[in-house]
């Protein structure tokens, strides 16, 4: 069927990256984009903490501060944490299940570019009169057409576009994990990272669609005169809060479950023990995901939904503590009796466990609905979710970064600098956020751009700000580490530098574009470890060496995403005072680009290309040599 053999080296590097559908290259793109947005939102956090360093400080105005909090939250969740997690999912999942690529390589590229252009659209707001300013929750009526500025339109359209990207990627991962597993890789032999990816993807499908609907409602209100949130004309402002949190609460699990997955990979690898209670871990993940959809009202205890609803949702929220507790103890008992090696990856992964517990217990405290009337919308909540996000997700991501880095890039990150990053991050993080619990209880609401003298908040805010600078230093060290290691670190040529247990460590380093020369036959959970103990240390092949069929690259994902970007920008232009070009024209141009690209893609039959068996053999020999 496939007869055109295209060598990637013939094309320019830029064109190669723009058109790639290789999950490993897309992972690198996700990593880069996520890191850029992470640094950007981190700098915003520094600005916010500088403003809060002294009482009644005037470093930024209230308006600018509101734009900073909104963009910090939105970027961190949608454009930093999500793509960083997607980077690891993209790179690791096909390797861990023994597949040559994801189910829909084209859609995979599409997901990345749409996400990226959505993020770009949101970021453009700074050049058109300021960012969105209604908080990442974007509550109406503060974001309605009467009170919200143009920045809100960038929020709505930017998230709408990037959400489409996240959604199609989610669908792709589900199909990949269900359909593309290597022979013998049953569901109950899936590494836990794959399980959490699967569950997260399901959450994405069911949580990002309500968000898309909700954002559409705000857009229709703001741009086309809808009355959904206008109380005078029968609208209801609490409706948005329900829709937002039906998305927003699962979103927390969308981010934290993959972090759980990474921890569940790293801890067994460096404890030299299999994961304690694998089955319980899988079911705990499923239960957390299920309950995650049943608890959204706990973000709205003070909105006035009534005592019965509050009680029910409070109890449901508390119930999540049980499966989470199961996970915590299973990780502890994975380490228990093991032979633990402490490097940066393991430091991050193991310290994740107690740190996450600190965030979890405040979560249970917050679940007590009546007492939440005290905590709600104060710095106590800010402290709580940063314990979950930094103490959970970021530590998980750091662990994953140091763990999979040699597989992704062919060299280790420097361990000494890595340890320094970890300790700076860990100390700075506790300094910044522990004290914020108390700040909330002594009466500091969240999202305030300043506080008054004589309210007893000055010292604690100063401590918190110093902690933020230490975290900033940690990130700088991490960046230096990447550059330093790229030049100074020794090349990794062995397949399994850590002595780890899962399938991604059974293929060559760096990974060839076809992942596996021969699809492996899986005989157990932790297959690489199993073959080391019960076999000759190598995976048994499930097929003979043969030509390998690969999909061609395509520029259409890029152009479709570009079209969506233009369309989104066109819709925003309806609300601009002086748009120069007619907004409708811009929107239509965007639509033509989108549907034109889709049409061209669908009428062009593309059968991919074959990598001849000789080249596969050559690369295998090269590794031995």
């Amino acid at each position: 069927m496939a007869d055109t053999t295209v060598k990637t080296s013939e094309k320019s590097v830029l064109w190669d990256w723009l058109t790639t559908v290789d999950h490993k290259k897309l992972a690198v793109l996700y990593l880069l984009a996520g890191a850029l947005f992470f640094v950007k939102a981190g700098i915003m956090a520094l600005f916010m903490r500088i403003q809060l360093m002294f009482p009644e400080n005037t470093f930024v105005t209230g308006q600018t501060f509101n734009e900073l909090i909104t963009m910090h939250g939105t970027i961190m969740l949608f454009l930093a944490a999500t793509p960083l997690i997607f980077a690891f999912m993209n790179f690791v999942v096909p390797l861990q299940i023994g597949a040559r690529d994801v189910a829909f390589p084209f859609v995979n590229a599409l997901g990345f570019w749409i996400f990226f252009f959505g993020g770009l659209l949101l970021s453009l707001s700074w050049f058109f009169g300021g960012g969105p300013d209604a908080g990442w929750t974007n509550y109406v009526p503060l974001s309605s057409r009467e009170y919200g500025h143009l920045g809100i339109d960038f929020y709505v359209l930017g998230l709408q576009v990037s959400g489409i990207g996240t959604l199609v990627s989610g669908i792709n991962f589900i199909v990949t994990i269900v359909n593309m597993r290597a022979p013998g890789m049953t569901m109950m032999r899936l590494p836990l990272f794959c399980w959490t990816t699967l569950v997260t993807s399901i959450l994405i499908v069911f949580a990002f669609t309500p968000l898309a609907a909700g954002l559409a409602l705000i857009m229709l209100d703001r741009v086309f005169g809808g009355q959904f949130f206008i109380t005078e004309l029968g609208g209801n402002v609490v409706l948005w809060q329900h829709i937002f949190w039906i998305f927003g609460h699962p979103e927390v699990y969308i981010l934290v479950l993959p972090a759980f997955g990474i921890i569940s990979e790293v801890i067994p690898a460096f404890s030299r023990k299999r994961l304690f209670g694998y089955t319980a871990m899988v079911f705990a993940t499923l239960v957390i995901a299920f309950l995650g959809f049943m608890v959204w009202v706990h973000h709205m205890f003070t909105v006035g939904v009534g005592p019965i609803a509050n009680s029910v949702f409070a109890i449901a929220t508390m119930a999540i503590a049980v499966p989470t507790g199961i996970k915590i103890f299973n990780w502890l008992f994975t380490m228990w009796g093991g032979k633990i090696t402490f490097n940066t990856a393991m430091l991050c992964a193991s310290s994740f466990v107690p740190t996450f517990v600190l965030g979890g217990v405040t979560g249970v405290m917050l679940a007590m609905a009546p007492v939440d009337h005290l905590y709600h919308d104060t710095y106590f909540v800010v402290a709580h979710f940063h314990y979950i996000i930094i103490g959970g997700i970021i530590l998980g991501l750091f662990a994953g970064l140091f763990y999979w880095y040699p597989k992704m890039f062919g060299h280790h990150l420097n361990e000494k600098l890595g340890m320094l990053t970890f300790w700076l991050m860990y100390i700075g993080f506790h300094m910044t956020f522990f004290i914020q619990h108390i700040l909330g209880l002594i009466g500091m609401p969240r999202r305030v751009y300043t506080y008054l003298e004589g309210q007893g908040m000055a010292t604690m805010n100063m401590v918190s700000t110093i902690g933020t600078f230490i975290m900033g230093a940690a990130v700088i060290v991490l960046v230096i580490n990447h550059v330093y290691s790229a030049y100074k670190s020794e090349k990794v040529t062995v397949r399994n530098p850590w002595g780890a247990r899962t399938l991604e460590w059974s293929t060559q380093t760096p990974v060839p574009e076809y992942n596996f020369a021969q699809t492996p036959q899986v005989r157990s959970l932790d297959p690489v470890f199993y073959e080391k103990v019960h076999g000759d240390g190598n995976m048994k092949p499930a097929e003979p060496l043969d030509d390998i069929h690969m999909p061609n690259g395509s520029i259409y994902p890029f152009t479709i995403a570009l079209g969506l970007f233009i369309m989104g920008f066109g819709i925003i232009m309806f609300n601009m005072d002086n748009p120069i070009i007619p907004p409708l024209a811009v929107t239509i141009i965007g639509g033509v680009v989108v549907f034109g690209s889709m049409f061209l893609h669908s009428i062009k039959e593309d059968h991919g290309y074959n990598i001849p068996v000789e080249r596969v053999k050559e690369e295998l020999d090269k590794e031995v040599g």
Partner: protein
Amino acid sequence: MADSVDISKGLPPNPEKATLEGQNKFLGFWVFLGGETIMFATFFGTYLGLRGGTADGPTSADVFSLPLVFIMTMILLTSSLTSVLAMFAMKKNNFKALMGWMWVTVLLGAAFLGLEIFEFYEYSVHYGLGYTTSAFASSFYTLVGLHGAHVLFGLGWITTLLVRYRKSGITLTNAPKFYVASLYWHFIDVVWVFIFTVVYLMGVGV
């Protein structure tokens, strides 16, 4: 893998699921429809929450015309049936019948869409129920209009398939495409049944 299916003896009995690509499309599309369901559910919830918010404008009982909507429902249900007949034809490897039934489906869909446009025109011009009149109006037009947009997209999609493969016969490449398109068409139909019940029947009942 795709190339490993032996088609020298003719097409297998379920051509749409014979290849891994076909299976992937099949599963992926089901997941997509799951997401779509939740999205429609959100709009249904919005409509239910806001349908009382008429703000002195026309109410649902004032404007809805059941006979017209009933005819629309029948047309769309019939189009779903014809797409099933097309799928039967595909499984029997009867390309001509497949094309024929699919074209009937498209025509019925177009008729439905025409009636819907007429309906919206009636409501907005004769009853003064504009999009911006009230929260009820906004949520009604958004929910039903989104369904209409899905119908329109489905018509474009199926027509593209019909034109593109008009001479190719049934192959392992296009069988999943037709199958998925008909799945989408059923989905649109099911959503309409809910709209008919929740929006129209409940709307004139109160």
